[in-house]
């Protein structure tokens, strides 16, 4: 029941599936100046991501895909070009676009529940009871409801990334940005998470931009896979993966897609090596 004067949203309202954002990245360039000269990390990269689309960015390390993700998040500013989320320019980080990093960005001084609550506490108009209810829901969604009061260091790598996922989902962002979140995990844990992320994506309807160097992973998760080429960072090629979901990482159809992308990735690598000579 809304209180007079000030809008108050309940946990039920907060847990509703909200409309995902569409992203428009327009001619984004970014140059890094380091000790060994300057590198053009991104060279007029343009990209549109539809509402609730799952886009994977693949490419060798150092090709600028993480930089692009950080720019979409608002953590870095492009030298030129703009990023629009639902038509509005991105000027800084915000709860509309949450990031899941390669290393779990969990705070060791908080327990699992406290970590999931962190972003929720920064949402006004929620009572603490609602926040706890929302946090509980997401911990259950990632399959960790029994571990709410565990310390972070007691968790396995896979569990840590599940907590990261729950923390990123809890403030109900419209976009989820994932930066090689499964790269450091063992194969079995990864395969479980591929299933889970597809299930959660379907349930919560998020626009997802997913950075990886694992082609098979990209083919398994993405509606589209964008191949990046380095020096300067550009989108080299685009692949549509139109397999039915949920997808199994080990399926033969998926392997065919992955092979196609790997071939393209290899030719980019060879061109790069030839250019270096």
């Amino acid at each position, binding site marked *: 029941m809304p209180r007079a004067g000030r809008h108050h949203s309940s946990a039920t309202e907060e847990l509703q599936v909200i409309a995902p954002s569409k992203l428009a990245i327009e001619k984004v360039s970014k140059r890094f100046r380091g000790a060994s000269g300057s590198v053009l990390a991104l060279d007029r990269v343009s990209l549109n991501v539809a509402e609730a689309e799952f886009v994977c960015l693949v490419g060798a390390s150092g090709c600028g895909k993480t930089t692009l993700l950080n720019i979409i*998040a*608002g*953590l870095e500013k492009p030298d030129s070009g703009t990023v629009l989320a639902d038509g509005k320019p991105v000027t800084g*980080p*915000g*709860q509309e*676009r*949450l*990031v899941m*990093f390669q*290393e779990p*960005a969990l*705070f*060791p*001084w908080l*327990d699992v529940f406290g970590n999931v609550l*962190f*972003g929720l506490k*920064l*949402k006004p108009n929620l009572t603490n009871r609602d926040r706890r209810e929302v946090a509980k829901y997401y911990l259950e969604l990632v399959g960790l409801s029994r571990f709410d009061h565990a*310390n*972070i*260091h*007691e968790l396995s790598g896979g569990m840590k990334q599940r907590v990261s996922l729950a*923390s990123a989902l809890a*403030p109900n962002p419209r976009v989820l940005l994932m930066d090689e979140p499964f790269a450091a995990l063992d194969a079995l844990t990864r395969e479980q998470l591929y299933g889970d992320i597809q299930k959660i994506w379907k349930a919560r309807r998020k626009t997802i931009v997913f950075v990886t160097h694992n082609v098979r992973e990209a083919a398994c998760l993405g509606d589209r896979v964008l191949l990046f080429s380095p020096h300067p960072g550009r989108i080299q090629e685009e692949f549509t993966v139109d397999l039915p979901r949920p997808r199994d990482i080990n399926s033969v159809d998926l392997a065919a897609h992955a092979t196609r992308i790997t071939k393209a990735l290899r030719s980019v690598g060879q061109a790069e090596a030839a250019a270096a000579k």
Partner: protein
Amino acid sequence: MKRFLLAVAFFAVVVLLWEAAYRAEIWSPVLLPSPGQVVKYLQGAAADGTLANATIITMRRLLVGYFIGLVVGLPLGLLTARWKVFGDTIGTLALGLQTLPSVCWVPLALLWFGQTEAAMLFVVVMGTLWSVIIATETGVRNVPPIYRRAALTMGSKRLHTWLKVILPAALPFIVSGMKQGWAFAWRSLMAAEIFVTILTGFGLGQLLHYGRELSAMEQVIGIMIVIVVIGLLADKIFFSPIEKFLHRRWGTSQA
């Protein structure tokens, strides 16, 4: 329980050896009183209130000075970590003065403040302050950048980030700095009390000093034991629980 019994047995043996050395009369009884004499002195001092009085005076000096050191040192440490200007100035000053044994502040304090409580307080603050500044600065500098980035995307800004992310992330460093500051403050206060007679109150250090003046070895040893016990208690009551909490949360405990 086994470890506790072992510790008790160990100290019992130490006291027995002491008693044996006293009875063997290897040294003059003036230099080495018996454990019984020391206990008798402590009982007497406890009964007539000298001991409680001195302990209260010393602890008041220590706690007030330590608290001031913390309240001033923490924000200064944050400033030096946050802004280069402060790091290059106050940070460098703190680094330099931290190498100065805090006893060295005693002569300066006496000239500035005379034989007053202010001199005592000043020595304690100087013992605490620099360690706390440096530990806070180091702690903040060692916060993994990913914490700040994650907090930023969650909508945390400025003061919120400092209070809810940077400060707790730096806590293990800050606590070890607080512990070091405490140790320095405690040592320098004892030195100051031994050297300086202050008419506003006799602390434990002064009892130690008068023990020497009167060649009352049982008093000297008795007060030394009290000082050791206070140090141990501070560790067990105040620092140990905090450190245990940190170890449990961060997963840094070996035990």
